């Protein structure tokens, strides 16, 4: 279909406000609307009860399905998945270094099918409603840039269906595996973010590791997204130092810490760091761990830290789990933090949409608005809260106005 071609997406259910009883929010009001889609954007929104627009544009009937903002998968490794290939459980390994050792043998074996598996995974993620993907991609002495090349070919196949970011990820340690040259090369070849992993425990030198990350990022005018699993003092020190460097480099709004487990530690220090992250626009990405370690995600959000969610491993040598479904992540988050009322369920959606929710805190519709990119999910639900709690089935996914998964 020609992207410029305009059409009407008719009978779309949009949220229009909260229903209140005795001051308490007990439900969500919705209305059926017709949306005019043109050049990938929403250019007009009409209430359906005014009848059909009197023009000759083609119409596609959404038949009352709920429109949700499309999801963002903010942390995944599409280069390392087994998905789409034969089943393989996780082998016992001796910690993170054992895993890295395992990669020396495993990655070359996976390489010939890396693109194919990445494509299958993208198809899965897209089908669930994610039209933006930030993938980490191994940059290491074993595979060099070949995983990234496979990743880029896979993403090319999905051009026009989703947008993406690629993090050049020195899994074996930026310093430890002497990967700075490779990462620099990756940035030249199209990576959008500089990655890293545990400057304290993997690289053994917080200062030099972070400094190298920031140097490369500034050189390449690129964002930063580093894995920090380190907990306690070393994790906090890493993130605190990263905050300093973000400020020095003027890299506000361009830095992400993935996992950021140290926030689950000492509450006072965590709160202080959360304030700094909020003021520097440093975002965090979480997989929503739910057992031994629990992140204070609601508190961090309330302090203004931007939080994204990711599926991370989807059946790979690190973890056999992972569904690829961001809505399920949001649902898990809501369940974990006891978001059970209408408003907090609806707001949980913001964790997987880059903060976009149909209603604002007062119940005014803020999405979709005329001019918004037509990136959306059509779900079988009566409102966002239901969609999150019940992980509503999704009928179709729109990216820049095109149906890129499912059908109407």
């Amino acid at each position, binding site marked *: 279909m020609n992207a410029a071609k305009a059409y009407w997406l008719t009978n779309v259910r949009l949220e229009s406000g909260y229903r209140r009883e005795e001051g*308490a929010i*007990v*439900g969500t009001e919705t209305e059926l609307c017709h949306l005019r889609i043109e050049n990938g954007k929403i250019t007009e929104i009409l209430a359906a009860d005014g009848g059909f627009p009197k023009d000759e544009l083609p119409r596609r009937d959404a038949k009352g399905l709920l429109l949700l903002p499309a999801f963002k998968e903010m942390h995944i490794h599409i280069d390392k998945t087994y998905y789409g290939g*034969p*089943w*393989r*459980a*996780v*082998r*016992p390994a001796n910690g993170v270094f054992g895993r890295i050792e395992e990669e020396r043998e495993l990655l070359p074996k996976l390489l010939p099918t890396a693109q194919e598996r990445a494509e299958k995974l993208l198809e899965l993620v897209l089908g669930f409603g994610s039209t933006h993907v930030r993938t980490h991609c191994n940059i290491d002495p074993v595979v060099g840039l070949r995983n990234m090349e496979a990743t880029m070919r896979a993403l090319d196949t999905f051009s026009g269906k989703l947008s993406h970011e690629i993090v050049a990820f020195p899994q074996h340690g930026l310093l430890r595996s002497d990967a700075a040259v490779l990462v620099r090369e990756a940035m030249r070849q199209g990576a959008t973010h500089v990655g890293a992993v545990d400057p304290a425990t993997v690289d053994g030198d917080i200062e030099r590791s972070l400094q190298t990350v920031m140097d490369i990022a500034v050189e390449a005018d690129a964002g930063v997204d580093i894995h920090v699993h380190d907990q306690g003092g070393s994790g906090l020190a890493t993130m605190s130092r990263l905050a300093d460097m973000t400020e020095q480099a003027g890299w506000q709004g361009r830095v992400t810490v993935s996992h950021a487990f140290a926030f689950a530690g000492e509450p006072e220090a965590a709160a202080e760091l959360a304030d700094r992250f909020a003021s520097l626009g440093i975002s965090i990405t979480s997989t929503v761990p*739910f*057992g*031994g370690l*629990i992140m204070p995600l609601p508190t961090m959000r309330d302090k203004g830290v931007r939080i994204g969610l990711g599926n991370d491993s989807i*059946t790979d040598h690190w*973890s*056999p*789990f992972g*569904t690829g479904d961001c809505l399920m992540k949001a*649902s*898990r988050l*809501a*369940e*974990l933090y006891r978001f*059970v*009322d*209408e408003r907090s*369920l609806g707001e949980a959606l913001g964790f997987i949409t880059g903060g976009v929710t149909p209603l604002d805190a007062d119940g005014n519709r803020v999405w979709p608005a005329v001019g918004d990119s037509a990136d959306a999910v059509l779900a079988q*639900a*009566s*409102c966002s*809260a*239901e969609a999150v*709690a*019940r*992980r509503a089935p999704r009928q179709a996914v729109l990216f820049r106005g095109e149906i890129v998964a499912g059908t109407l």
Partner: protein
Amino acid sequence: MANAYWLLNVRLETGHELENGDVTGTKTDLFHLRIEEGAIAEIVRAADRPDEIKPEGLGAGKASTGKVRAMEASTGGVRAEKARTGEEKAEGTGAGEALAEKAGAGEANAEALPQVDARGLLALPSFIEKHCHLDKTLLGDRWRPVRPAASLFERFEIEKNTLPTLATTMKERAETLLALLLRAGSTHVRTHVDLYPEVGLRHLEAVQEALASFDGKLTAKIVAFPQHGLLRSQSAGLVREALRQGCGLVGGVDPHTVDGDAERSLQQMMELAVEANADVDLHLHDGGRVGLDTIRRLAQLAEEAGWQGRVSVSHAFALSDMEGGEAEEMAGLLARADITVITSVPLGRTMPPVPFLHARGVRAAVGCDNIFDSWSPFGSGDVFERAGRLAERFGWKTERELAETLGFITGGVTPLDKDGRQVWPKPGDEASLVFAEASCSAEAVARRAKRPAVMHRGAIVAGSLEGRSV
């Protein structure tokens, strides 16, 4: 040979693949299973199939599935859509001549048993949903979130006032949930049913009617559950009556917090159980000292009554508060009284340490608990997914750990034992199976494999084997 047929090309696990002593994979093979009177009568390797089985005979299969359908209808397991998928299959394989020839061959041999082709799907023992509330669910009714409640007692009121106002009947909602449970693969369900003075036995009656419409598709046990407190709501009489009217277990909830007198509450619960020769399943959310003491006393009472193996504690949050040597003591106590710990695998830190308990011989089982009700808007009704969550929660990632996880939703049955010997299915086992799109149990658990069909006592009771694309 009534109700007999061959189930062809079923994938069964046959052993472990080992590498340097670690289990790194699972061996499987295809088998034909002769099903008779709801049980597995014979298991033969597909490669050594007896002469009378001609699995490649699509026509024969088609001609004979009619007989299987008739058999299913007689056990109440027929699905209207099967006819349609059968037609699709005929179209898809419509190689005219060959089909006719084989169909003719099938008819010629009147002695040949009907055949159903599982086409390589993995068979798992069907699941047990060990903890749910069929009377509480709002499924099938319109969406509504959970209303904030200041206390447990306010929650009781909200629920009590909500249920009678719904546009759907309790029977309808319970049926919607049962269909969901069955589709996920649960062919046995333990449901609690609320008993309190304002509703009398009405919830029980509605749930029993719903279960009656699933007769032949699954089995169920009902727990007589005095949700508002056995003592607090003075419901002993109701519980006694419910036990007479078909409940198999006595329930209860937080004898300390809700009833305010753990000793008397536990005593009364056990007396009701012994009187009715019923099992026990206590909701215990009380944590810390209070919860642990409740479990200790319950174990004592169970042993005194000779009720070993007949008592469950659901939730058992207190077991996450055990300190030091107490953990070994509690595990020993639970194992001795053979008390089953049932968990819904709640998200968060507070849940029983299942790996620790399991290693010490304490039985543990998983149930979904709340599935969209006045207490929680979540819950999928898929106990298999819950088992996957259990594995994820405790970091069970290896082939062996994942495969063993299955036991928590099958009453301990797994296809292979610890040493990789095939122990399920065996001839004589009930033909209650879940057909999964997976290469082995471990994959199925980790990847929440799709389950195209569920079989209960020889009849397909959810999904279908016929519409499957190979």
